């Protein structure tokens, strides 16, 4: 166990259930994985597969009402599940920080962006007003915002989506977190800005020696930027492995469907997006079987009644959950 404690992040049997009017909704249904320092891993899955809930649960940001979290999240050895708000607050920003999906809503609309950066510096790092301002301007510069002294006094409404997301990144980096959770950091932005932001994150990760969890619904985004990929479906991991292995030797039909449906970052606007036929399952009415079975052309009787657990593939660390996996041959994905 002492080995586990040295891990940056160890998630075990993590489950998040919302108690809704329609019944219990298992948005995350038993997720386990871990992560070393200085890694970038990707979490991919269609929208609704539980990526956001998973990242927020790892952060411990879930509200206390109407939600139950079980399992364990060890962050540098500290158990986040069940920790008090005070204990978590100590780690937020410094140990782990988050970039939210929508830069249009994640900044305070009536506070100057500079103030939103330097309040973190003042509150968390105890900097003086002048130091914090100077550092905030440095951070704005670091994330590639032109004329940062001038932008310091801008309100979020005066900035474009890409600029806002840069500000959000600057805020999340303010206290040099060890782990950065980026929840679809580029989804709302146009393609050229997407690439810029992703490249910026990659560069900052190297420069600041962070680890990054990059959450996206687009496999194209994670292809070149991550060392490992977690594929999620209906709140569970259905395939996990090194990025190379998942792209070349994926075994789960859902992973293939996802790969075929993802546009390439470079030519997204010209590529027709093929979507996966069918719809993600209603989480309130999950069956005993594999949740992808209703949409899967390989599904057999067994798939509908018995849920496959993750099992090891050939390469160490590569696992998939499927009764009828794709053959072991190397494959290239048609684009």
């Amino acid at each position, binding site marked *: 166990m002492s080995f586990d404690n040295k891990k940056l992040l160890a998630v075990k049997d993590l489950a998040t259930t919302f108690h809704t009017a329609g019944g219990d909704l298992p948005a995350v249904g038993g997720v386990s994985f871990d992560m070393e320092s200085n890694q970038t891993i990707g979490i991919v899955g269609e929208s609704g597969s539980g990526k956001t809930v998973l990242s927020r649960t790892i952060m411990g940001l879930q509200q206390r009402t109407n939600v139950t979290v079980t399992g364990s999240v060890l962050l540098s050895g500290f158990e986040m599940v069940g920790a008090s*708000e005070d204990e978590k*607050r100590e780690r937020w920003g410094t140990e782990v920080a988050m970039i939210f999906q929508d830069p249009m809503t994640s900044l305070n609309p009536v506070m100057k962006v500079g103030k939103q950066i330097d*309040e*973190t510096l003042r*509150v968390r790092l105890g900097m003086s007003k002048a130091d914090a301002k100077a550092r905030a301007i440095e951070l704005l510069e670091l994330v590639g915002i032109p004329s940062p002294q001038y932008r310091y006094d801008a309100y979020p*409404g005066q900035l474009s989506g890409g600029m806002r997301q840069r500000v959000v990144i600057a*805020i*999340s980096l303010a206290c040099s977190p060890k782990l950065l959770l980026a929840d679809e950091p580029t989804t709302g932005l146009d393609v050229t800005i997407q690439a810029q932001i992703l490249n910026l994150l990659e560069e900052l990760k190297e420069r600041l020696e962070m680890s990054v969890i990059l959450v996206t619904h687009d496999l194209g985004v994670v292809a070149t930027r991550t060392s490992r990929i977690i594929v999620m479906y209906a709140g569970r991991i259905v395939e996990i492995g090194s990025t190379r292995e998942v792209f070349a030797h994926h075994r789960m039909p859902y992973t293939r469907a996802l790969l075929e449906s993802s546009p390439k970052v470079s030519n997204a606007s010209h590529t027709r997006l093929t979507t996966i036929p069918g719809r993600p399952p209603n989480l309130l009415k999950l069956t005993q079987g594999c949740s992808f079975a209703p949409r899967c052309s390989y599904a057999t009787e067994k798939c509908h009644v018995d849920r496959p657990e993750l099992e090891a593939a050939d390469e160490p660390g590569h696992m998939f959950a499927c009764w009828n996996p794709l053959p072991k041959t190397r494959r290239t994905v048609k684009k």
Partner: protein
Amino acid sequence: MLRYVLRRIVMLIAICFIISVGSFYLIHLLPGNITTVIEGPGASPENQAKLYKLLGLNKPIYQQYFVWIGNVLRGNLGTSFISQTSVASTIRAALPIDLEIMFLSQILAFATAIPIAMRSARKPDGWLDRTFSAGSFTLLSVPTFIVIVLMVLFISVKLGVPHTGPSSYVSFSQDWIGNLESLALPAVALAIGSFVVYYRVLRSDLIATLQEEFITMARSKGLSQRRIMWRHAFRPSSVALLGAAGVNIGGLLASGFVVQYLLNIPGLGYTLISAINMSDYLLVQGIVLVVSVGVVLINFIFDFIINIVDPRISRE
């Protein structure tokens, strides 16, 4: 922002113009000869002639308006035939009392409504929230004059607390402690009505704001709950509060008038009611004019504050 303010100022001037026309016309609506209306039935012919000339009554009505507004802008609202004192000086003596009552009541209302709404919104459906939500809902339907009558009955009559009953008004220059004591009841009574509105408006906006993503973001920065409430949630939630406060001023003045009348406090309300009773029309006209312009000005100021609080508004 500047363009927005300029546009607002133009509108303000337009509204003040309409108000002045209305107040000017008020006198002409009354039956009978204007000089009799203004100077009373027993006015001497030479006084009537003087007034005739002063008001330019031989000229067409729009010119009369300009003569009148010229006087008003120079601070001359005419001289009451009943008290033989200038209307402007009567208003100058009474107005500070209204302002003081309003000021005290608003300080009280904000100082209680804001922290209680903050605590309520932090734990909606907690005991504090339930108590104040239910309590404020009940009070919402009770008019201020009932509150003041009950307070007088209970506090000054039953408990016999000194300086709180009717006719116990003490002026500020005489004795400022006595003055505060004598205005305590009306201030509290008016504050209760405002509190109910402010508390409810702020609470519901805070609850909505706390659902916003930027609040989760603020939490994820590791800021304290207190800081999140005051620095992040309060300001974007206070637009409707300020709007309500601006609108509330009119109603507050009216309630203030009733309270002054009930407790014999010689503010504008009291003066207005006695002026009406004594058919002192010039005084009525002056008070109507001053009060209307005052309400419009206060609304203008609140509007301005809202724009500073939420810069998104003027940018649209």
